[in-house]
């Protein structure tokens, strides 16, 4: 019986593996932490520099919006744009609830900076949503550690 010829083919290089998931953190907690504390998801996943930048910048934008007489919009189903703005406001997380508890964010439509304030408040919430999506990608190992 003839011996089977050994293969001369070089070994195939291993396919590049995606970055390892960050120690299997529960995704729901990453979302919740990232939403309530801007940058909290990144901090928990070990991306401390990014997390601290978000932790400083997003609440700073939110507070600036309040200081510029911006308004925290109510959930009004009769006015879809107002409802969308309200969803964006809630996206800021804990700063939103603190502002609501303190009774600030009524907005002053006659103020020169009213629209700027709204832009800051809405954008802070929307950017936090992007930050949560980024934390999601990191938690799933789709982003490599720099």
């Amino acid at each position, binding site marked *: 019986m003839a011996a089977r010829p050994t293969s001369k083919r070089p070994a195939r290089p291993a396919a590049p593996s995606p970055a390892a998931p960050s120690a299997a953190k529960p995704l729901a907690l990453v979302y919740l932490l990232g939403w309530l504390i801007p940058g909290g998801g990144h901090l928990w996943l070990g991306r401390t520099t*990014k997390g601290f*930048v*978000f932790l400083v*910048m*997003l609440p*700073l*934008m939110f507070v*600036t919006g309040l*200081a*510029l007489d911006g308004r925290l919009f109510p959930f009004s189903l009769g006015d879809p744009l107002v409802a969308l703005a309200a969803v964006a406001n809630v996206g800021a997380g804990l700063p939103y609830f603190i502002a609501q508890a303190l009774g600030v964010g009524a907005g002053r439509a006659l103020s*020169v*900076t009213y629209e*700027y304030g709204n*832009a*800051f408040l809405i*954008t802070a919430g929307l*950017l936090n949503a*992007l*930050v949560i999506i*980024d934390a999601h990608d990191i938690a799933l190992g789709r982003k490599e550690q*720099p």
Partner: protein
Amino acid sequence: MNLTSHLLLMALFAGCVAVVGAVLLKDTLRQQARSAAEIFGSLVGAALVLGWILYFLPI
């Protein structure tokens, strides 16, 4: 707050968005700085260009 300069507020807004966007998109400090400068320049530049276009429109 007595901060009523539209140009200053626009620049402040663009700066905040640029920093957060750059940190989200890039990983190294050098890339982040470059990306933040690009985003900031794009936002402010686009606002100035649109402002001039609107100036000539009879609104």
